[in-house]
Each structure stands twice: as structure tokens, then as C-alpha cells.
């Protein structure tokens, strides 16, 4: 038997089971908490900081995707301050690398673009960092353009947790951080990649894409295949 907790999000009374996160319960109740590293079906890492919420009684903000619910909790998911912070985080994601929507394969199919639109980011105050980064098109079917990577690491997690290949991982640190295949060799030379394409499917931006697609023809179908796989895994007791 699971314990049910009742608490409040943005003044709305909600209920959830013990072990659920604030993000999950919010989603169930139609409260939209933004997030880019969060993806149902893979483990959360609380890194994009878009889902930060205020919890009454705590001086610190908390990542909704990783905060377990508790009885009587009073969560503020939307406030002027949070909106400003979320706008700045989104802006930071844009200025960190070289996002040019007009020539991006994911134009109009991009979660980062949607995020900026939803939060009302109309222009950038922060200077662009404009680093020189690589494109790896050595794989037969797919390519990665690091210019568009926001390091949500969905690809790393889906490859490890769902496909079980662990082809993707992370190298270097700070602004130099990059996702990499097989200890930093070109993707096409990877011996562990199964070419399943899950990484491409979960990528929120145009960083990972199928070859042979033109601008704005992003084929991201947004099929929610991970929740389905999770249910199958649970049913089989995996």
C-alpha cells in the first residue's frame, strides 16, 4: 500500500503517491512546469534548472523533477522571480553555443525554441559566447551538431538506460563539456552504437538529427515511446 500525500502547487490542492516527484504530480494535474533535461522514462538529473520551484519554508529553490513530494508541502511553481530566472536560463542555453534557428533542421520542432516562445524570451541581453565546436557526421544514418547541443544528456541516459549500449557519455568540463561517443572517437567508428536512433528521438534540439533532412524538416515525431517502454519494463518486472 502506498501512502498518499496531499499538498499544494500554485495554490491548487493536489494529491500524489509517496515517491512521486513534484514534476510528476504537477503534470498529472495539468500544471506545466518547464524542463528540458527531464524526460519521462529516463532518470532525472536536475541539471537544466528550468523546473526550479519555491517550497514554502525552504530558503533554497528546488528542482521539481528531483524533489519528492511530502505531506502539506506548499509549492510555488510560477512566480515573477521564477519566470525571470527561467528566461535567463533559456537565454543562457541560446548564447552558450551557436543556435541559428533559421537554418536548423529542428526549426519549429525544437523544444528549446518552444521553451523560449513559451517563456516570452524575445531577445538576448547576454553576449554570445560563440565557441568553435565540431560537427560529427561520420555515422551512416545520423549526425551530431554540437553547435545546437544544450547538454541535457537525454541521449546519454536513453542510450545507457533504455538501449543499454552506453555509447554516449560526457567529456571535459565547464563550457568545454561535450557529449561523446565511445571515449571520444567519431560516432561512425563506434563499436557499441546499435544505430537504434533513440538518442536522435529524444534530443530536444537539432543537435542530433537524421541525415538527409533539409532545414525545418525535422522528423522528430515526438512519439512518447519511453513511457510505453517503461510500462513494459515494469510489467515484465525488469
Amino acid at each position, binding site marked *: 500500500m502506498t501512502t498518499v500525500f496531499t499538498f499544494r502547487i500554485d495554490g491548487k490542492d493536489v494529491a500524489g503517491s509517496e515517491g512521486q516527484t513534484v514534476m510528476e504530480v504537477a503534470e498529472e494535474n495539468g500544471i506545466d512546469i518547464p524542463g528540458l533535461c527531464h524526460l519521462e522514462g529516463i532518470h532525472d538529473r*536536475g541539471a537544466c534548472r528550468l523546473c526550479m520551484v519555491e517550497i514554502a519554508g525552504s530558503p533554497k529553490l528546488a528542482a521539481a523533477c528531483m524533489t519528492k513530494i511530502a505531506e502539506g508541502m506548499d509549492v510555488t511553481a510560477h512566480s515573477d522571480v521564477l519566470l525571470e530566472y527561467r528566461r535567463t*536560463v533559456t537565454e*543562457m542555453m541560446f548564447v552558450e553555443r551557436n543556435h541559428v534557428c533559421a537554418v536548423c533542421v529542428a526549426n519549429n520542432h525544437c523544444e528549446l525554441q518552444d521553451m523560449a516562445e513559451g517563456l516570452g524570451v524575445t531577445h538576448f*541581453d547576454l553576449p554570445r559566447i560563440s565557441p568553435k565546436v565540431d560537427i560529427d557526421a561520420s555515422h551512416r544514418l545520423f549526425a551530431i551538431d554540437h553547435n545546437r547541443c544544450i547538454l541535457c544528456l537525454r541521449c546519454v541516459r536513453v542510450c545507457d538506460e533504455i538501449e543499454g549500449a552506453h555509447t554516449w557519455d*560526457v567529456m571535459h568540463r565547464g*563550457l568545454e563539456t561535450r557529449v561523446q561517443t565511445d571515449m571520444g572517437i567519431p560516432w561512425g567508428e563506434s563499436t557499441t552504437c546499435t544505430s537504434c536512433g533513440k538518442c536522435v528521438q529524444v534530443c530536444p534540439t537539432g543537435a542530433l538529427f537524421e541525415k538527409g533532412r533539409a532545414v525545418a524538416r525535422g522528423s522528430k515525431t515526438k512519439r512518447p515511446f519511453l513511457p510505453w517502454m517503461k510500462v513494459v519494463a515494469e510489467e515484465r518486472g525488469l
Partner: protein
Amino acid sequence: MSEMPAAARAVRRRATTEEVHEGPARATAYVCEAASCMSAQAHDITLRLGESAARAGLSDVMVKRVGCLGLCAAGPLVEIAETGRLFDHVRPDDVEGIVGALRKVKPTDTRASQGPFFEKQVRVATENMGRVDPESLDDYVAHGGYEALRTVLSEMTSAEVRDQITQSGLRGRGGAGFPTGLKWTTVAKAQGSQKYVICNADEGDPGAFMDRSVLESDPYRVLEGMTIAAFAVHATEGYVYCRAEYPLAVARLRNAIRMAQRAGWLGTGIADTSFSFDVQVRLGAGAFVCGEETALIASVEGRRGTPRPRPPYPAMQGLWDCPTLINNVETFANVPTILRKGAEWYAGIGLGKSKGTKVFALAGRIVNTGLVEVPMGMTLREVVYDIGGGIIDGRPFKAVQTGGPSGGCIPAEHLDMPLSYESLIEVGSFMGSGGLIVMDDTSCMVDVAKYFQDFCRDESCGKCVPCRVGTTQLWMILDQITRGRATLDDLAQLERLARMIQRMSLCGLGQGAPNPIFSTLRYFRDEYLAHIVDRVCPAGVCTIEPAEVMA
């Protein structure tokens, strides 16, 4: 070739000189063989002293390698134990003089005053520093080592040990000052059959070298503290996570673990009781963020050293998801003495909620660069002027930076402030691990803020967006200010971003990164304005670029 074998070799060479000079000692010369004196050829001095004393036929004289004597600026240091006479900046030519002084030592000699640098200190965590041979277990035991552990194992319950630590008022010496007794109790009560104790020796703050000196000078004390902690929280395995940049500390620690295992102070059935505990060393690969406890745990587990959101705290879910006690080197180093001398004694030192002593590393524009341990509540002025000997060349004091890259700059107006966890936070700084960087009027505070931001930018692990991108953005604005190319709007942007990064970052690195900016803005806003409005650097440090001509 790496430095590691060289440090290990020193251990063996020293053993041969000791054999020559063993016996009842009438006079003893302590030679500081901690990293800074070693880098000034202190080991060579030890060997020469040994040879020279032998040539002079002094068979009742001992030349002993000891840990840090504290006055690192004046190394290599040699102290005559009986008279307290200190020889500084010792060079090979000075050896004969020291042997002459050793010859003159009489049994009736008493230690003379060594001046305020030594006299004003209160030594708890560093009580054996400069007294015991860091590579000799026998010497540690001869100085009261393992007495506390013996008492704990034979006469106390784990709850009594925890009570003692709670009553002593000891708080985490890694910087945040979390009550140690409470942490121990949490781990002890946490569910789980397997528990771990981790010693955080990943000291990385610029200008801080307390943990290094403790490990180099008295490694057994840290091991004893860890073993007592393990008994108190029911742990059976421990790790020391030490940065690889400390080869001498690692070599001495490994030697100490081997010796303690052989003597039955580590391993199965410690001191003929049923209690078992063993320690392994893990080396950090140069990432500052691995000093953060969740990143440290990830690193010990063999994963990428990045932090994760807390809760769950390591006390509940730490190493391999087991309850884990993580304390700093200095915290563990205090434990044996607290149990030997009693909680009341320890709680009697200090100020308010900050009990006991704190080890500080004095660095920067200060005469006596070195390592000191002072009671909490001592004023900054006493530390800087009495113990530290004041500013080099008698220049005016400008600020002292505490708490590393998460700390702040304290200006002259707060010189008479007592040092404690609370008072430092009140003035916008942070205790941190204990680095004190003293600055005079030749330092530009904007440049100082830029330096620390550059550090954070470089050390950001890259996991969360506010820290990964934000620290670089802050640094870029500061860089513009120091070039005289910023506007007042940029300054407003700097403050806005700093507040956001402080609140939105995942771990202490990002949350603390804007602190140097906040504190320099709080006390030295005029310097920022001078760079922006008047386009001059008052300290003459920054190179202001010529104004662009508007076409």
C-alpha cells in the same frame, strides 16, 4: 617522472640516518619536512645535520624529521626542541651552527618564548605538528596517539562517543560548519547494514593548505579520528579522498595506513576488540568540484565527478547508496583530542556557537605566510597583525579574502571582528576551509573578483546551466570592467546575473561563485565605479584600454 616515487624515496633514506642517531637524546633538532620546507631542500638539511652531528661525535643528539612547524614563509625551519630556538631559512652552510647550538644544550634548558606567531596560537588539530615524526607510528603513540581510540573501544558505547562530539560543539571544518555531532547521529540512525566513513581531503581553495599540512604532519591523527567516527556511526569501511596534487601527503597517508594496519589499529579486530574498520585512499584527478560531497562520492564510485541535488543527503544515501559520513580532514583531526581531553574542555574554547579552534592558512601580502591554529573568536586584527606579523613592507591593509572562491573580501573596517562561522557570514564572507588571503593597497578588488570568477568558470563541472554558462558570463562582464569598457548597465546586469546564479545553481560551487562579487561590491563599489565611470584602476593593476572614438 611523477613526484610520487620521490616522496616515497624520502621515507627510506631517512630511516638510515635515524639508525645512526638513535639513543638517549640530550638535544633534539626538529627539521620541518612538510611540503613547503621540503621544496626548499629541507630533507638535505636533515641528512647534513645527521652527518655533521656524527662527525662532531655527538652521539646523544637526535635529528628528527617532523611535520609542519607553521612558519612556511621562513623555511626550511629547524627547531631545537629543548631551547625552542628556531633557525629559519636554513641553508647547507648553517648546519654547523645548528650542530654547535645542539652541543650547547644543557638538561636544565627551558623553552624560550618564540614570539607571538607561536605563543598566540592554540593547538588542537595541529597539536602534534612540528613535534612528531609523521612517518612513525611509535612516535605518534608516544605523544598520546591512539589513547582516545583505546578508551573509546574499551570503555565507551557508540552513543556516548556521539554525545561527547555533540557536547563539544564541534562543527564541520570544511567550511559550511554543520554540527558534527548531529551529522554523526544522523548516519548512526540511518537504515542500512553497510555504512561508510569518508574523509574529504580534496582541498582546492586557492591559498588554502590546511588539510595538506595536517596529512603531511600527522596522518595517524586523521586515521584515529576516522576510526573513532566509524565506531560511533557503525561503519566498517572508510575512504580518504585526497587530491593527487598532494603527493607527499598521499605518500605519508599510505605509509600511515600500512603501519596502522600492521599494528592492529586498522583492519579486523582493532585493539583486540570485535570492532573492525579499514581505510583506503582514493585520489582526485584535479577537479575542484569533487570537494563537494555528492561529486566526491560519484568520483569514489568511479563515475564522473559531478554533484547531484540533495536531498537525499549522503548521511542517508551516500556511497553506493549506503549511509555515509563525510567529514573534512581537520574535523577528524580534532576528534582524538576532544575525546582525550573531554567535550567540556573543547566547548570551553571559542565564541558563541563556534566552539574550539580553527586552522587557517595565511597567504598573500602577509609577513608570516604559514599555517596557524587559533581559538574561534580571535579578532582578524590579531590574526593578521600579531600572528601574521602584519603586511609586507608595512603597506596599508586593504582586505582579507576568506572562504576561497565561495567566500568574500573583508575590508579594514571589520578588522576587529571576532572570527566565527556566524560573524563571517554576517560580513558577507564565509568560513570556508580556512584560507586567509591578505591584500594590501596594490590589489584591485575588481581584479580579485575577476580572478575568483575565472577560477569558478574553469572549475565548473558543466552539469547545470546557471553555473556552466553563468560563471563565464560574469567573468566576461568583469573582464570588460577591468578593461574600462563596461557601462553602468553592465554593472546592473552583473548584479542581476549574480543573484540568479546564486539561487539557481545545483551545488555549492555555483551557488557560492557570485560571493566574491557580492562582497567586493558591498565594500568596494567605488572601485567598480572608478573603472566604469572614470575609467581608471585605483590600484593601478588593470590595463584600461583607450576610449574608442565615436565616428
